[in-house]
């Protein structure tokens, strides 16, 4: 398993703890990142590795304590079990105060050994991001993720907005400023960071500095705070990219989508305006070059839907077939509660089945898959 080391100084200490942790770690780290893509034990960012180092330290200490105490227990069971023909009663020992004081102090000492690095890591992880920071505003929705890059704006000054797929350049610290539009969610991409809740009315922050050699990796994550029906299906995907790939992606995202003028997609755009635009929006360029926004931002921005690799918050891969199934009956792909949608308050709990015919669906698919 590949484990990039952040700095030379930590290497020796870490290799010592790693050696000590062979037994428990062998169980937990048995599989490498390719078979456990969402594991917290395969850290791929500086922050996740800090957490993992701390975890390994605690795991080693806990394992030592576990082995000693359980061994004492097992020894006592075998050594002191009542044997046949032994009718002598045991000594009636009521306690041993010095011994009891000692075994009250030993755990306290071990806990200090854990508490000190815990506090150091805690305050380190919570310190403000430094350097050339990538700012991302994250908003949780039932049941999807809205990502906004406030520093990357298009020609009209609109910040880059996308859904469910987060792109981050490697080697730079990204700071996610997070809140929720409805109920509490929790952003959890275990290989990149510990989770952090998205609380309505609050702003929470998370730092992620992806390892420089992880460019090209796609890392899955998902919501970790129960948010009702489709909590299990509120997933996301993080794309780690080189600076140039990230810049190229951002440049593409800053472009408006085209309004198709002929073919299936052109009819699809009419349906989009008539139905989808009630919740979704797209930034589109008129034939004369003027850029406008069609629709409302209650549901994921679809301007570059075709460029995404998944749909429905990583419930399915983004193929024409899956998209058609989704439009045909969204709640069959992912359970939602569109009957509770309330446009007055803007509380949207899912996409209804609009009863579109196969032809209309095919037109919409052509439109959306073409918007890449």
């Amino acid at each position, binding site marked *: 398993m590949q484990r990039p080391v952040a700095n030379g100084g930590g290497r020796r200490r870490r290799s010592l703890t790693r050696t000590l942790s062979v037994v428990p770690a062998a169980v937990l780290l048995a599989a490498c990142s390719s*078979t*456990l893509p*969402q*594991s*917290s034990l395969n850290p791929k960012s500086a922050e996740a590795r*800090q*957490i993992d180092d*701390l*975890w390994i330290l*605690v*795991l080693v200490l*806990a394992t030592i304590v576990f082995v000693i*105490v359980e061994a004492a*227990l097992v020894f*006592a*069971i075998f050594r*002191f*079990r*009542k044997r046949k023909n032994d009718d002598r*009663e*045991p*000594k*009636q*020992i*009521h*306690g*041993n*105060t010095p*011994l*009891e004081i000692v*075994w*009250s102090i030993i*755990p306290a000492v071990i*806990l200090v050994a*854990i*508490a000190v690095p*815990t506090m150091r890591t*805690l305050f380190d992880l*919570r310190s403000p991001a430094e350097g050339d920071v990538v700012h991302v505003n994250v908003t949780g929705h039932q049941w999807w993720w809205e990502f906004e890059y406030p520093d990357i704006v298009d020609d009209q000054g609109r910040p880059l907005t996308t859904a469910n797929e987060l792109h981050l350049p490697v080697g730079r610290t990204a700071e996610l400023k997070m809140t929720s539009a409805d*109920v*509490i969610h*929790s952003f*959890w991409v*275990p290989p990149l960071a*510990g989770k*952090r*809740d998205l*609380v*309505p*009315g609050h*702003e929470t922050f998370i730092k992620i500095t992806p390892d420089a050699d992880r460019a090209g990796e796609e890392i899955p994550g*998902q*919501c*970790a*705070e*129960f948010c*009702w029906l489709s*909590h299990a299906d509120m997933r996301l995907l993080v794309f780690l990219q080189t600076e140039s790939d990230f810049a190229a992606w951002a440049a593409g995202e800053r472009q408006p989508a085209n309004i198709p003028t002929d073919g299936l997609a052109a009819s699809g755009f009419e349906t989009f305006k008539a139905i989808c635009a009630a919740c979704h929006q797209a930034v589109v360029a008129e034939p004369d070059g003027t850029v406008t926004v069609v629709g409302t931002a209650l549901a994921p921005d679809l301007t570059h839907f075709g460029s995404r690799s998944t749909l429905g918050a990583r419930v399915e891969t983004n193929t024409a077939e899956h998209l058609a199934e989704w439009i045909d009956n969204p709640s069959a792909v992912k*359970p939602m509660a569109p009957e*509770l949608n309330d446009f007055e308050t803007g509380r949207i709990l899912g996409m209804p089945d609009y009863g579109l015919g196969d032809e209309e669906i095919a037109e919409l698919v052509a439109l959306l898959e073409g918007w890449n």
Partner: protein
Amino acid sequence: MAVTTRTEDLGYTPNTDGVWSWITTVDHKRIGILYGVSALVFAFVGGLEALLIRTQLAGPNGTVLSADAYNQLFTMHGITMVFAVIMPVAAAFQNYMIPLQIGARDVAFPRLNAFSYWLFLFSVLLLTSSFFIGGSPDGAWTGYANLSTQVTEFVRMDYYAIGVQLLGIASIGSSANFIATIFTMRAPGMTMMRMPVFTWMSVVTSFLLILSMPVIGVGLWQMFLDRNFGTVFYEAQASGDPLLWQHLFWVFGHPEVYVLVLPAMGIVSETLPTFSRKPLFGYAFVVFSGIAIGFLGFGVWAHHMFTAGLSPVAEAGFGVVTMLIAVPTGVKIFNWIGTMWGGKLTLNTSMLFSIGFIAMFIIGGLSGVTHAVIPADTQQHDSYYVVAHFHYVLVGGAAFGFIAGVYYWLPKWTGKMLSEKLGKWHFWLMFLGFNLTFGPMHILGLDGMPRRTYRYPEGLGWEFWNGMATIGSFIIGVSMLVFIWNVINTRRKGLPAGNDPWDARTVEWMTTSPPAIHNFDRVPVVRHLDEWWHRKYGVDEEGRAVPLPDGYVEEPAFVEEAGGFHMPSPSYYPFIAAFGLVMAGAGLVFWSSGMMGFGMLAIGAAIMLWGVVGWAAEPITREVH
């Protein structure tokens, strides 16, 4: 009121036949049995919920349950197991054993005791009826706002807001009762530091409940008002704050964990000395560490909120106190092992479950310490790692301890012994099934699997351990069937237990099995911790126990006050008052339905008033039939 001095002089035969005798009973032992049997029935409901959950998760993209059904089932599994199984099991032990352990004839407030039981039962029935009427709570047993307050179209979380509120009243009632009993009704000579540890731990849990239940009570009313009257206590968009609920819930919720586990710690502190034939090692340390756990338990609630975005300074403080709790917990474990050390261990079923408790609680305790490591907890929180942790504490811990208590005390309750052969099958199946179910969940959580998810996709490496966990859960199910069969079988085939089948140490073993209605013909005068043992054994010059030459020493018994003692009369008013209160609660649950809700509230309140007035006005010299 029956006035008497001895069994033969009771002057009446207490009516113990038929449903009516159970409805009107105020005998702490019969109420204990009611709690125990109810909890066992609900354990099967909660177990069935668990097996459905595990069946759904056996493989990726499970389709056995819909997301909606799954959410109701996991929510009800938590509520059922916490409020309808573990808490009433603890109440069963406390009701039956506390008066016997302190040499009392009943609890301080027998009718309040009956009221608490009926209130508990009707509240759980109200919660369970949600399966059939309107849908069950589906916002997790933690009921986090503002999810729990937002979807007001359903009554589901109203069941939760009202049901848990009512259960809280029942808990406060029985806790006040136990405290009054223990503080005022101990046998002569039984100082606090001569009390059995189980009774001591019951003091601690009773105080925990009295102090913590009102906190969630406030929270639950706010939830109910937010849902039904448009208050905005938890609405961020309107100056409320969803985090307020988390604080209120966990100020209750964390002490609640100790409410569930401290009685089990008390039980193994009884069984280990008995089956090691040695006194509890460091009695005072065990007692005071239990008190320390209770105190510290109020200062750790925000460790359930390490991902909520509190300031790191607050997190550091709560992390340190959480780590501190490991010290008294460790003390208990070391003292239990110290009790076994140098003893003569009888490895019967009760002892196996007691040792299993220690072995599993070590794991749950250590994984608890890893939660105090705040950055690491941000990976563990709300993942299956946490699910593993609290099942090691509440099943490997509390449930194992309680089962040890059943094998230990059931002979006292019934006068008959459970089968050791079936008991050992029960233990080994449960030990295996438990570890197979919950051990892998540590790995699943660290591998990124969040809890409360009705399905998971393929390709994340979670299939194997989920399959194992499902197999394990069914093994636990089989072990519980063995347990039930053992208990039922005891009725016909159980060998007679006699008064003191284990050659035990505390005064409950001095009386008959089952005890007479007044518990003791003569209340023992207590001179020692482990009074009964000291009446049977002395020590030689080496410090080894030696049986006293004349069998046991009959100490001069306590002379009752003139006129004999008073046993409380049966009463049906607690039943009526509890029924009325829960019916009024049901009216609140269905408040949003208009007249039906209001009607139930009004009728329920009237019935409750009838019960309360009748209770208060009941002549204290009622004839006993």
